[in-house]
C-alpha cells in the first residue's frame, strides 16, 4: 500500500471509531438532562435513579469520545499536512471555535456535574448537565461547518495555491451546513434514544426495576420517534441539496451511469465500476426525480456525463468515487432510517394500547436497534466522505495532493497499528463496562441524601 492509501485507512479507522461515541454523546447528554429535569420538577426519586444510571453510562461513552477526539484534532497536521496548509485559513476557524465555545464548557461542567451532586444547589447542578448537552451539540455544529466546507466550498478565494477566507458569513450559512447539521445531530438523537430505549427494554425483560425503566422507555420513545421522522425529512433536504452541489455523489449513490429524465430510483443493483455498468437492477420509476427535485419529471445526471464534464473542467483523470460502496452505504442508511421510524411508532402504539411492557418481540427488537444505529451512522458518513472522492475539498483539492510528503510509510504503519490496537482494547473495555453497569440496574437512592455520580 502507498502512503496515501495508508493515510486514508488511518483516517477512516480513527474517524469511524470516533463516530461510534460522538452520536451517542449528542443524544444521551440531552436525554440525561431531560431525565434530571423530570427529577427536578417532580421530585420522583425514580428519575434520579435513572439519571444516575444513564449518567454513568454517558460518562464512560463520553470519555472515549474525548480521547478519540484528541487524535482527530491533530491528525490533520500529522497525515495531511498539505491539506492543512491548503485549508487552514478556513478550516481552522471552526476547530478553534469548537474548542473555545464547546470543549471547555463540556469538560468543566461535566466535572462539576459528576462531583457536584453533594456540593451544588439543585438548580445549578441541573444547569451543569444542560450545559454539557448544549455544548456537545454545539461542538457538532462547528465541526460540521468544517466538513460542509470540504463538501461545498464557499466564501473563499484562491491565493498563492491555498484557499483564503473571503466571506465568513457565507461559510456560516453554507447551504450544505444547514441541511447536514440537523440531519447529523438528529441521527445522534436517534442513537442516544435507541440506547436508552434498548437498555430500558432489557431491564423490563429481565423484570429488574421494570416499573422504573418503563418511565425511561417512554421518554426515549417520544424522543426517538420525533428524531427519526425529522432525520428522514432533513435527509431528503440533503439529497436535494447534494444533487445541486455534488451531482457526482448523487449519481454514485444511485449507481446511475446515464442521465435519465424522468429518473428512476434503484432498489438493488450489482455495480461494476470498471465496465461502468449497473446490472440486475430493480428500479422504482420516477422516484429518483422525486428524491432529487421533488417532482416527477426532472432530469438527474448520470456519472458518464459528469465524468466528461469534470475532465473538461479539471483535466484528464478518474473523477468517479467508489460507486459500489457509496451505493450500498446509502441503501443501508436509508433502510435503517425507515426501520427506526417503524420501531419507534410501533412502540408508541403499544404504549397507547397499554402493552409496552408485555410485548417481548418489541422489547427484544429495541435491544437490537442499539447496534443498528451505529451501522446507520457509519453508512451515512461513508456516503458523505467516500462520495466526495477523489476530492478532499470538492473540486479544489484532490485527496492525493493533501497527504503529508514528509511522513514515511513505515511511520504510518506504526501509528495505524498502534491506534487500531489501543482502540480495539478500549472498545472491549467500554462495551464490557456498559454491559456490566447496564446489568446492575439503577443505583438505589434515598430521599434527602446526596452522593456523587462516582469517586475516582
Amino acid at each position, binding site marked *: 500500500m502507498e502512503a496515501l492509501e495508508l493515510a486514508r485507512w488511518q483516517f477512516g479507522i480513527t474517524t469511524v471509531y470516533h463516530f461510534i461515541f460522538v452520536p451517542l454523546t449528542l443524544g444521551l447528554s440531552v436525554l440525561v438532562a431531560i431525565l434530571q429535569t423530570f427529577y427536578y420538577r417532580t421530585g420522583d426519586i425514580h428519575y434520579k435513579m435513572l439519571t444516575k444510571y444513564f449518567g454513568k453510562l454517558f460518562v*464512560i461513552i463520553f*470519555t472515549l469520545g*474525548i*480521547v*478519540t*477526539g*484528541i*487524535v482527530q*484534532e*491533530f491528525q*490533520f*497536521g*500529522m*497525515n495531511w*499536512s*498539505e491539506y*492543512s*496548509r491548503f*485549508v*487552514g*485559513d*478556513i*478550516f*481552522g*476557524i471552526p*476547530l*478553534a*471555535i*469548537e*474548542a*473555545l*465555545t464547546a*470543549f*471547555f*464548557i463540556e*469538560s*468543566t461542567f*461535566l*466535572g*462539576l456535574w*459528576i*462531583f*457536584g451532586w453533594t*456540593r451544588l444547589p439543585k438548580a445549578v447542578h441541573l444547569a451543569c448537565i444542560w450545559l454539557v448537552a448544549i455544548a456537545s451539540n454545539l461542538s457538532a455544529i462547528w465541526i460540521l461547518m468544517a466538513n460542509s466546507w470540504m463538501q461545498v466550498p464557499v466564501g473563499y478565494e484562491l*491565493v498563492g495555491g*491555498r484557499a*483564503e*477566507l473571503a466571506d*465568513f458569513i457565507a461559510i456560516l450559512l453554507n447551504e450544505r451546513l444547514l441541511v447536514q447539521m440537523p440531519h447529523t445531530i438528529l441521527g445522534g438523537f436517534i442513537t442516544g434514544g435507541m440506547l436508552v430505549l434498548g437498555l430500558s427494554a432489557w431491564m423490563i425483560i429481565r423484570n429488574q426495576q421494570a416499573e422504573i425503566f418503563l418511565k425511561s422507555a417512554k421518554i426515549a420513545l417520544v424522543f426517538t420517534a420525533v428524531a427519526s421522522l425529522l432525520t428522514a425529512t432533513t435527509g431528503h433536504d440533503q439529497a436535494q441539496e447534494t444533487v445541486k452541489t455534488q451531482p457526482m455523489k448523487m449519481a454514485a449513490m444511485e449507481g446511475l451511469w446515464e442521465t435519465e429524465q424522468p429518473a428512476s430510483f434503484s432498489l438493488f443493483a450489482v455495480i461494476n465500476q470498471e465496465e461502468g455498468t449497473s446490472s440486475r437492477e430493480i428500479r422504482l420509476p420516477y422516484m429518483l426525480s422525486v428524491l432529487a427535485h421533488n417532482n416527477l419529471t426532472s432530469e438527474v445526471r448520470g456519472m458518464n456525463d459528469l465524468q466528461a464534464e469534470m475532465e473538461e473542467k479539471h483535466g484528464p483523470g478518474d473523477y468517479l468515487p467508489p460507486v459500489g460502496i457509496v451505493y450500498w452505504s446509502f441503501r443501508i442508511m436509508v433502510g435503517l432510517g425507515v426501520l427506526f421510524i417503524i420501531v419507534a411508532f410501533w412502540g408508541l402504539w403499544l404504549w397507547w394500547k397499554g402493552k409496552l411492557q408485555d410485548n417481548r418481540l418489541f422489547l427484544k427488537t429495541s435491544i437490537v436497534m442499539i447496534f443498528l444505529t451505529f451501522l446507520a451512522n457509519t453508512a451515512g458518513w461513508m456516503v458523505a466522505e467516500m462520495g466526495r472522492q477523489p476530492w478532499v475539498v470538492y473540486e479544489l483539492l484532490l485527496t492525493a495532493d493533501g497527504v*503529508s510528503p514528509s511522513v514515511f510509510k513505515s511511520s504510518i504503519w*506504526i*501509528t495505524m497499528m498502534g491506534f487500531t490496537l489501543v482502540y480495539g482494547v*478500549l472498545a472491549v*473495555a467500554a462495551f464490557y*463496562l456498559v454491559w*456490566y*453497569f447496564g446489568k446492575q440496574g439503577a443505583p438505589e437512592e434515598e430521599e434527602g441524601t446526596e452522593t456523587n455520580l*462516582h*469517586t*475516582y
Partner: protein
Amino acid sequence: MDLQTFWFILIAVLFIGYFFLEGFDFGVGILMPFVSKDEVDRRVTINTIGPFWDANEVWLITAGGAMFAAFPHWYATLFSGFYLPLFLILLALIVRAVGFEFRSKMKEKWWRLTADHFIFWGSVLPAFLWGVAFTNIVIGLPIGEDMNFTGTLPALLNPYALLGGLVSLVMFTLHGAIFLSLRTTDELKVRVEKTAKMMWIPVGVILLTFALLGYRQTILFDEFGIIPGTLPMIAIVSFVAVIVFMNINRYGYAFAATGATIVFGSLVVFQGMFPLVMPSSLDPDFHLTIYNASSSDLTLTIMSVLAIIFVPIILAYQGWSYWVFRERVTRDAIPRS
C-alpha cells in the same frame, strides 16, 4: 502590534496555560504510585485532580485548533515533523484519560493495576515529550524549501532535546507534588511535602544545566546575548522562591512559585523564537515565521474577536470550578469499594 504578533502571543498563552495546568496533573499522575502507601491513598491522589484534569487538557486542544487556524503552516510542519513523538503523546493521553475514568469501575486488582500503569505512563510520556518537542523547535530542525521537515526520528532524539524533556518532566513532577500538598491531608500530605523538598535540588541542577547549555545549543541566546534579561531572571528567582516558601510552610505560595517558573521559563522559549515559529537548521530562508506561516488578516481578525470574548469567560468558569472543589480530599471521602 500586528495580528500575527497578537496570535503568536495567544498561542504562547494557550500552551503556557496548558503546561501550568496539565503540568500539575501530570505531576500527580507521576507521583501517584510513589507517594501512596495503599489503595485509599492512590484514590485520594487521583481525586485531587478528579474534576479538573479534563478541562486542563482542553487547553492543549485549543492550542492545537488555534495554531491550525492562525498559523496553518506551523501546525502542518510541526505535527507532520514530530509525527511519532506526537503519536506517543496522543496514545499516552488516551490511556491516561481512560485510566482515570475506568479505574474505580471495577474492584479487581489487575484492573486497577492496569489503570495505574495507564495513569503513570500516560503522564510521564507527554510530560517528557513536550519538553523534547519545544527544545527541538528552538534548536532548529531540518526544514526544507517546501516548509516540510526533512529529517528522521533520531534527529529529534538528540541529547540536548532529551535533556529538555527531562526538564519538563521533573519540573511538572515538582509542580504536581506541591499541588498535592495543597489538596491532601495528614500523612499523605506530610509525605508529598517531603518529596517536594527532596526534589528541589536535583530539579534545580537539571534546570541550570539545561539553561547554561542553551547558550551553545539553541537559537535563543542569539536573541538575548550573554545577559539573559528579565524573563529568565524571574524564572530563576521564582524557582529559588519555591524552596524558601516550602521551608516556611507556605505551600500555596510555593505552588504559585513553581507555576511562575513554568510560565516564565516557557515565555523565555517563546520570546526567544519570536518572530520565528519553526527555525530551519538548513537555511535561514526556509524559516517558518509568524508572517509566512500565518493565515489571512481576515481569519486572524475574526478569531481575535472570538478569543477576546471567550477566553475571559472560560477563565471565569474554570476558575469557579476550582473554587467549588477547593476542599482537601480526605481518606474518609473515598468509598470503601
